């Protein structure tokens, strides 16, 4: 029996840029193939080709020995469903409507809402999500959006699921539920092509791994044959040294930020902490524990009250407005790069300089300076773009994330809050980003790292706050910073530790 999906010598060029070349790959029924590679290696492009979104420039692609469908509709009819790297949902519709969009069950000419509700419930339950099928999507946090995306894909009765970084916005618990569902799917004969930059996940779920570099397949083989380090080396094309920079000693600098009793109803209640110069403070917690909300509130981005707020160079006492926060050296890197982070249709230089220009730019823009700033960012973060004047939208997801980090740090903040800093970023770039964070701290800035990848918090932070249900469940330092303690605190299994 031949393979379920078969790609032979597939190539894709955008304009003059080759993205994929001579790509040959097959996927069998009942297997999960992981596709790994650096940012911009062409993973999403490959998925889009298989999903019928873009035609390949050359080569043959077969599914079940038939040519691949040319349109999304035909692809879906053939049972090929793509979960995009970026959300593709209608925020004004309900969860159930989103799941069944375009495939609404009908009864008496009208949409069968009871059925939608019932089946959505089942689909979501299978993913361990408790989202209400009748809730408007825009009222849910991003995690739930991702679960809705996955549920939507399963609602289409797929034979082949293309999952483009489905876990990037998920926490450990959600990832586990998702994997359970995927395993069940393949055990029933389905096939999955899956990408992720979390190599431990790849190891855990994939039966085979294909490594993509510079548009070519560099390695295909059983997942069990490769260690994470080997995968990383194959991806990046060089040996990766230590992922996390060595931790400095707990810094004893002066307090630059102190917050007492921060409230931002209904997500945040009574958060207090202090932050010292040179310190990296990790924020852990389950998805939905209010981490984003708490720090957005501090950055003046959502309404909140606070008993006392002191920031080194700001008028103290009350919370700042967004602009005051930036002006006082408090930078916030948003977790929502598409909605709040980047101007997708603007150039990269414009994006990188947007905030710093708004803060300190002169009345007239200095294009040379902006280009210089971008060039520096491209070097520092290894940003891969198709053309020097590319717009942000044309970059791969991970490269967009790097632009966003460069944009946030361009203002040289004293206090930098990183919310999910490595979302969608490849392992080599992660290493670079960690170095940058550590370097920032070493130069005397204070950093906050909010992350759903617990390893990241553990690997980077001098001190960790664990949040639970909008307040601080515990603070950990030194050797207490480990997975089990964090999880116990986050789940409310331990009383406050210190």
């Amino acid at each position, binding site marked *: 029996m031949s393979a379920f999906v078969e790609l032979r010598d597939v190539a894709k060029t955008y304009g003059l840029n080759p993205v994929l070349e001579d790509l040959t790959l097959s996927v069998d029924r009942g297997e999960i193939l992981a596709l790994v590679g650096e940012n911009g290696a062409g993973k999403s492009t490959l998925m889009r080709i298989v999903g019928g979104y873009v035609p390949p420039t050359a080569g043959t692609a077969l599914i079940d020995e038939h040519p691949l469908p040319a349109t999304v509709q035909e692809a879906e009819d053939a049972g090929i469903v793509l979960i995009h790297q970026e959300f593709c949902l209608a925020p004004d519709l309900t969860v159930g409507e989103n799941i069944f*969009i375009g495939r609404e069950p009908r009864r008496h000419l009208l949409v069968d809402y009871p059925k939608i509700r019932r089946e959505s419930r089942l689909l979501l339950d299978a993913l361990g999500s408790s989202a209400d099928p009748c809730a408007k999507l825009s009222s849910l946090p991003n995690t739930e959006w991702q679960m809705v995306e996955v549920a939507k894909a399963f609602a289409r009765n797929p034979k082949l699921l293309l999952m483009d970084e489905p876990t990037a916005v998920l926490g450990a618990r959600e990832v586990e539920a998702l994997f359970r569902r995927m395993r069940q799917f393949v055990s029933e004969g389905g096939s999955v092509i899956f990408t992720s930059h979390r190599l431990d996940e790849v190891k855990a779920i994939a039966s085979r791994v294909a490594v993509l570099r510079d548009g070519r397949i560099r390695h295909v083989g059983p997942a069990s044959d490769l260690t994470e380090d080997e995968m990383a080396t194959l991806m990046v094309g060089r040996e990766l040294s230590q992922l996390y920079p060595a931790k400095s000693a707990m810094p004893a600098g002066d307090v630059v930020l102190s917050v007492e009793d921060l409230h931002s109803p209904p997500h945040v209640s009574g958060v207090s902490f202090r932050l010292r110069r040179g310190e990296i403070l990790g924020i852990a917690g389950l998805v939905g524990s209010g981490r984003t909300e708490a720090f957005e509130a501090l950055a003046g981005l959502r309404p909140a009250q606070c008993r006392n707020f002191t920031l080194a160079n700001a008028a103290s006492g009350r919370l700042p407005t967004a602009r005051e926060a930036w002006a006082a050296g408090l930078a916030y890197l948003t977790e929502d790069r598409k909605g709040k982070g980047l101007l997708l249709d603007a150039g990269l230089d414009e994006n990188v300089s947007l905030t710093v220009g708004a803060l300190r730019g002169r009345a007239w823009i200095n294009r040379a300076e902006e280009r210089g700033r971008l060039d520096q960012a491209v070097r520092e973060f290894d940003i891969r773009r198709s053309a020097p004047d590319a717009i942000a939208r044309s970059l791969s997801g991970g490269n967009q994330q790097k632009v966003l980090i460069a944009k946030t740090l361009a203002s040289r903040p004293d206090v930098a809050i990183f919310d999910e800093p490595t979302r969608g970023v490849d392992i080599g770039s992660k290493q670079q980003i960690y170095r940058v964070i550590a370097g920032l701290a070493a130069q005397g800035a204070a950093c906050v790292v909010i992350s759903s990848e617990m390893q990241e918090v553990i690997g980077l932070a001098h001190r960790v706050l664990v949040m639970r249900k909008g307040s601080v469940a515990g603070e950990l330092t030194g050797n207490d910073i480990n997975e089990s303690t964090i999880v116990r605190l986050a789940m409310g299994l331990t009383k406050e530790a210190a």
Partner: protein
Amino acid sequence: MNAAAADMPHRPWLGATKRLSALGPILALLALISIGSLLSDSFLSAGNLSNLLTRSAIVGIIAIGATYVITAGGLDLSVGSMSALIAGLVIMGMNAAGSSLGDSWLVVLIGIVLALALGVVAGTLNGILVVKGGIDAFIVTLGTMGIFRSVITWLSDGGSISLSSSLKGVARPLYYGSVAGVSYPLIAMIFLAVGAELVLRRARIGRHVTAIGSNPEVARYSAIRVHRVRILTYVFQGVCVALATMIYVPRLGAATPSTGLLWELEAIAAVIIGGTALKGGFGRIWGSIVGVLILGLIDNILNLTALASPYLNGAFQGIIIIIAVYLQKGRREV
């Protein structure tokens, strides 16, 4: 376009105030009704209310279509001219039919069918130009607005096209008739509104209309026939205009180059007053109907009470419209 609202952070947990905001247009309506009944004794008379509701049905029915178009992220500026053109052609058609068939209801029926056909054609024209031509809806419908208006002016030679007076008698009940005190136009509007609201909320096509207004990419990625749905909204708008025209024609029995002037502005304003988002993705028919009633009420009250100089009527209208919308938006962002 709703700039300020977009600047605000989303605070969807404000359940209670949100529900209050949904009532915004109704609050404005109630406030106007109270003001009206305070300022004028005749305001609450059955006759006045019936007049008001019946004549609101014309723009009301158009606004129902406009709600669909706007919810799907489009815009139609041509409705007023389209109505004038359809009125002219239908009257010509009915006169011709009447001369061979006599003054029977059949002629009126022919008129209605003709109107609907013309509405479908005009709406399809708009839709195709927007979707297949890839031209901005504002420009397309601004263009067809000029075209329709020119053609009716040309057909009528600048004057009016009148229904033959015998047919006028036959068609008259379409506007003036009533069942149990409720006029036919009002009944038509209510039925259409309820149906359209039901379809918008509960039918597949309605959800697709909302989806493509909310995020056209999603719709495309979800295998919705975005083009078809978008064209259909313009076709439905055309049908609504045709229906409204069939209420309008028997009222005065004539079409002139000034028929339907500025109805597009009235319809769009009503839709937005009613809470539909101009940028698309959220629409409510009942809100648009309330919006039309608010606009009608303002005129009515200004006519019934001699407030200030009639020169200033426009200013009162402006102020009241702003306040009416503030009532809902304001609350949404408390």
